[in-house]
């Protein structure tokens, strides 16, 4: 990205002042080198978002931002319904509420030494992953509606996991205001047999070792110890969420002219929050969030069962569950006044700072855990929401590394089988169904996640708490 048009505010913050149709500035968080790696399309897309009606304070690109659909991935934007604010299906993305959840094992690295192959095989066998994989759960119409209303709470009530899990999930596991009637028959049809499945692409279930702690006190509060194992999942709302995205993208694009919201990119299509379409999308999208929360809850239950066979006395407690493709109604302080805003986070994680009322009691003093997934074979991070995060980007932080190379280029650059051998020599077991898929997800196809989280910390979005190194990865 050409930085000549940007004003440098600090080592990790850059501003594009309002120009043309922009109503607010565009703010970019990241080091010079991360920003230089970004496509020029990112600047164009953030400027487009800054031009939407009702946008408050600024449109943001976080350090992992890359070229998305309408909104950049790694983007944040908040809209005021009282000022003609809008909601955008493209601003949430196709994989509604895609996110990461991390489970604590309390086990040291050595406890699986010599059993890695066996554990990898058991996880790969039990977790439905990849294209076309079905779970063991098949929902009828009334179960589907109950799931869309109840999210992870429905999953726990249906026997997947424990009530204590719900305290460690955003929205206590159930997004209010979801309406199954706003979700199309096609979306429900796509989701019917996919509960408890991982999906494909960059989704995974991974056993990781905590290799470095940056904030001892916060790590202790989160239950993280150096040398211990954790398990992280990355997945979302599956075909149901994708279909909601497709349905409303189409409807919003078609209605753009009627709303007087014609945009330079059709994917910026949005609807006023006050409109029937905007409200219907909100209710459908919230149902999509519940689908993702229920899906991760069911997968958690599967993983606990596998682990229970290896370590019968060990209970895997949930550290936290974060979503990174959402639009949420939140109260934020703007010019010292509390405002009710609709915050779009596309490829961005909510990052509540210490003292926020929505935090579980035991995290209140430390801020929200932010789970940042790496790519296959690279490290992941756990961060904590910073006090300044609200002022910086409406309490938001990064979600991952972000691609730096297209899938086609990656498939031409690497050979899947060789890559698997190389990772195995480094002590990382990958279980994947397709060699080409492995090549497309090669670690080198992604930006350096360590640079991304350092920049997030430098920008005051979050504090680094722990680094996690992969040991066993079941790829979607």
């Amino acid at each position, binding site marked *: 990205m050409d930085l000549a048009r940007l004003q440098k505010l600090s080592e990790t913050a850059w501003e594009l002042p309002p120009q043309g149709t922009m109503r607010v500035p565009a703010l970019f968080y990241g080091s010079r080198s991360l920003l230089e790696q970004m*496509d020029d399309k990112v600047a164009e897309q953030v400027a487009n978002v800054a031009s939407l009606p009702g946008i408050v304070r600024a449109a943001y690109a976080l350090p992992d931002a*890359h*070229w*998305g*659909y*309408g909104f950049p*991935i790694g983007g944040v934007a908040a809209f005021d319904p009282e000022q003609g604010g809008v909601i955008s299906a493209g601003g949430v*993305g*196709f*994989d509604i509420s895609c996110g990461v959840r991390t489970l604590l094992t309390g086990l040291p690295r050595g406890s699986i030494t010599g059993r890695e192959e066996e554990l990898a095989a058991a996880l790969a066998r039990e977790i439905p992953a*990849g*294209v*076309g*994989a*079905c779970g063991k759960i098949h929902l009828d119409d009334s179960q589907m509606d109950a799931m869309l209303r109840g999210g992870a709470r429905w999953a726990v009530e249906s026997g997947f996991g424990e009530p204590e899990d719900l305290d460690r999930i955003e929205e206590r596991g159930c997004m209010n205001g979801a309406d199954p009637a706003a979700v199309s028959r*096609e979306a429900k*049809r*796509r989701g019917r047999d996919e509960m408890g499945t991982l*999906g*494909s*692409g960059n989704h995974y279930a991974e056993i990781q070792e905590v290799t470095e702690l940056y904030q001892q006190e916060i790590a202790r509060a989160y239950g993280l110890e150096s040398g211990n194992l954790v398990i992280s999942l990355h997945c979302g709302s599956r*075909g149901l969420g*994708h*279909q909601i*995205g*497709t349905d409303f*993208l*189409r409807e919003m*694009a*078609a209605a753009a002219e009627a709303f007087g919201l014609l945009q330079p*990119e*059709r*994917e910026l*299509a949005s609807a006023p929050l006050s409109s029937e379409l905007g409200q219907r999308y909100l209710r459908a999208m919230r149902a999509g969030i519940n689908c993702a929360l229920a899906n991760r809850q069911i997968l958690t239950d599967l993983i606990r069962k596998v682990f229970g066979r290896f370590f019968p006395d060990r209970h895997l407690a949930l550290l936290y569950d974060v979503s990174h493709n959402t639009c949420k109604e939140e109260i934020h302080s703007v010019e010292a006044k509390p405002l009710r805003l609709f915050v779009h986070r596309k490829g961005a994680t909510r990052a509540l700072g210490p003292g926020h009322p929505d935090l579980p009691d035991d995290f209140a003093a430390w801020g929200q855990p932010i789970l940042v997934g790496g790519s296959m074979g690279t490290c992941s991070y756990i961060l904590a929401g910073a006090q300044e995060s609200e002022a910086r980007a409406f309490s938001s932080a990064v979600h991952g590394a972000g*691609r*730096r*190379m*297209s*899938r*086609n*280029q990656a498939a031409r650059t690497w050979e899947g089988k060789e890559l698997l051998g190389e990772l195995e020599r480094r002590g990382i077991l990958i279980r994947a*169904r*397709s*060699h*080409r*898929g492995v090549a*497309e997800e090669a670690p080198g196809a992604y930006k350096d996640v360590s640079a991304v989280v350092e920049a997030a910390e430098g920008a005051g979005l979050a504090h680094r708490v722990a680094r996690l190194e992969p040991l066993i990865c079941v790829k979607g």
Partner: protein
Amino acid sequence: MATAEPPHAASRARWEHFAHIADVGIRGIGSSREEAFAQIAVALTAVITDPQRVTPQEPVPISCTAPSGESLLFDWLNAIIFEMATRRMLFSRFSVQLLDHRLEAEAWGEPLDPERHEPVVEAKGATYTELRLFRNPAGEWVAQCVVDV
């Protein structure tokens, strides 16, 4: 419009992928809009697996209605994605008829076999990014779009 045999692509009709940083661009080229629509559908399958591995065993009817050629293209690709996901099938040959604002088609394929097809990634949805239907300087029809994976 059921046919007994799967359709065979015209000789100059072809498909290709183009780069997008996070996802995949797909393109179909042919002497008519119908051929371009059929070829871009093969390009969509090629995101998931080698289309040559997919036997065109049985036809699935697909129809959509939309106000413009590009909207029809968007709906066509999403309809194939829906059929792939819900029938757990892959398709490798397509016959397409375009009548004003309506598309009538058959997608020929077979049930997904993870061992044989080794599917790489699932397509989540067609997007409006780079969505275009146009004639290139050689006079051929080109249909293209970026697919979210």
